[in-house]
């Protein structure tokens, strides 16, 4: 099976003009989750059912009697998005078979959840869904903390980041543990398609959404999502910070399409992580030495990825 992400969206003019996310949501100004969801729906189109976990996206788009969703949408709870999506997928399958729903109707079932709803409380339901092989595309938007409840640490919070439950004090300086490698945990389930994406590389991200919807069986797209409120940056910097995440290799855009692994956004000349870190208030407390520690972690990860690809797809740090 060959990956088809190269086709599809090549330029900005390929992006559908139709909007399925209505204007007027309540996300924070500058929130990149809005960008991700809007582009996701453009890829998916109208024949879509979205299952959304409790979190920022849900609370800010469904305040009764208003809704931002022009496609069918359901929110049930924080931890069970994958299970609810499994039920919807199973229902549609059998209702098509019984002729209640037009069997030729193509429908996308998309599960959408934050890092908390995916990597922590929702991981059991997600694992169950992946193992059972439901044809659902699961999109995890990763703002690296529980933002809806006010910036508490999650399993996806990076090491040394400040959050309200990993405060910076005299003894402790932010989160002690490393970020949970969610996409790799998902990949270990041997599902057809797993990818990491970044809204700053929106064509790459959209092509991944497209591929995720197209494969038979479950797919998982892990999208980094800079959060102005939780990461403490000026609202106009969201996409810039997202781009820096990839340029510094703090975030690597890759895909695993069946057995084929590739880095979809090569970075021949890497920037030092300080460019990414120094723009964010959540890392304000870090000393140069702390940043060097993070740089070493990233260097090791780059080495590992390059080895997997078999060539230097991500280059050395060039200031």
């Amino acid at each position, binding site marked *: 099976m060959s990956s088809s992400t190269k086709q599809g969206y090549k330029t900005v003019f390929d992006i559908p003009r139709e909007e399925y996310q209505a204007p007027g949501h309540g996300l924070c100004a500058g929130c990149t989750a809005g960008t991700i969801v809007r582009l996701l729906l453009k890829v998916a189109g*109208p*024949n*879509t*059912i979205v*299952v959304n976990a409790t979190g920022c996206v*849900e*609370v800010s788009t*469904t*305040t*009764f*009697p208003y*809704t931002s*969703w*022009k*496609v*069918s*949408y*359901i*929110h*049930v*709870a924080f*931890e*069970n998005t*994958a*299970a*609810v*999506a*499994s*039920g*919807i*997928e*199973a*229902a*549609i*399958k*059998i*209702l098509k*078979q*019984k002729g*209640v*729903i037009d069997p030729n*109707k193509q*429908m996308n079932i998309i599960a959408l959840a934050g890092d908390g709803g995916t990597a922590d409380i929702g991981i*059991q*339901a997600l*694992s*169950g869904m992946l*193992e*059972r092989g439901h044809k659902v595309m699961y999109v995890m938007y990763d703002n690296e903390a529980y933002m809806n409840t006010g910036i508490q640490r999650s399993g996806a919070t990076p090491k040394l980041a400040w959050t309200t439950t990993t405060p910076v004090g005299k003894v402790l300086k932010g989160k002690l543990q490393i970020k949970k490698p969610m996409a790799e945990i998902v990949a270990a389930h041997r599902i057809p398609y797993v990818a990491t994406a970044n809204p700053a590389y929106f064509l790459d991200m959209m092509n991944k959404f497209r591929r995720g919807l197209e494969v038979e069986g479950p797919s998982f797209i892990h999208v980094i999502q800079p959060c102005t409120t939780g990461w403490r940056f000026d609202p106009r910097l969201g996409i810039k910070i997202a781009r820096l995440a990839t340029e510094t290799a703090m975030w690597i855009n890759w895909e695993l399409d069946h057995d084929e692994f590739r880095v979809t956004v090569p970075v021949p000349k890497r920037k030092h992580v300080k460019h990414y870190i120094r723009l964010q208030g959540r890392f304000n407390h870090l000393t140069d030495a702390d940043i060097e520690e993070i740089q070493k972690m990233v260097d090791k990860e780059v080495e590992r990825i390059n080895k997997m690809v078999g060539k230097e797809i991500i280059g050395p740090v060039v200031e």
Partner: protein
Amino acid sequence: MEKDLWIRIPLSSNYAAAHAVKDVDVDVVAAYPITPQTTVVEKIAEFIANGELNAEMIHVESEHSALSACIGASAAGARVFTATSAQGLELMHEMLHIASGLRLPIVMSIAARALSAPLSIWGDYSDVMNTRDSSWITIIASTAQEVYDSIIQAYKVAENPDVLLPVMVAYDGFTMSHTYEPVYVAKDRSIILDYVPKKRPSWNVLDVEKPITMGVVANPDWYYEFKYQQVVAMEKSPEVLKEAFQEFEKRFGRRYGFIETYNLENSKIGILTYGGLYGTVIEAIDYMKKMGMNVAAIRLRVFRPFPYEELLKAIKNLEALIVIDRAISFGATLEGPVAMELATMAYKKGLDIALHSYIASIGQRAVTEEDVIAIVKNTVALLEKGVKVTEKSIYWGVRL
């Protein structure tokens, strides 16, 4: 009842539940095994494997996901089913409220079982009583036949546009889930589907042609009205339940109500209970009759909505009512959950009736006919001493 439409086979209540699921042509089943419910799941899997039921079975990784998947499938317009017991029902608890809040006509059977800790796999109604305020219509069956019939009736009520609430059908773990009784099941499920037709979904569904948003955020300006709608649905449900029971009787000849009574006419003392224990009480009453003592039995079949009118009619001429509860509401005024309902009712209606609350069969501690007779004797002695309402519930059979 037209005999040739039915076959009479020995079934446990668990198997009776599975047969009902097959005969109402459920589309999606999501369930997770737990003793003593497990054989429901196994039997349904067998029906699907044999092609007797064409349904998607989702082998979920937990009860939380079982009910979540049912919520998703029901929201997509499928007829769905799940079954559980005890810890499974507790793990579903959050979803119980969401299922009813989203107004999805999910049907679930419960082989009622004691709650941990300490771990007990045996039958009592702690699990069911814990769901009291989750806005599920709750039926407690006392025979395997009734389990089969009630699950069929449950779909008719749940899917009624005036109701749209989920329904649970409970029965005793082990004493019913694992013992066999002769049960009439439909030879051909078309007669059942005539009674519960699978029309276009009567509830709001996730349709890509007509997009809707389900599971919204409701601010203080709106939340209360949503909950009040559930109150209204519960208030409308007795009428719908009654019609469902009457139509069932007209078509199939088997008669069910909100409550059941036995030997009510000549009695001054009544015993109210639920589930399989009712059978034991009836035996005890027949025995007491022979001893020249007339005692009535009342069985609570529908717990939610609470059958106020019917119970009032049944108890208004009694001098004393014994309520045998099979769950404990720790720290309550009367720790028998159903006794508490009766106390409220008696007070509201100014009934001059003595009310004695007993707790029994906790963790399936045996309750025999002799126990029932002893409970009656104990009550008579209390009445002679002028005890009108038991100060606390009486824990029958516990070693102090």
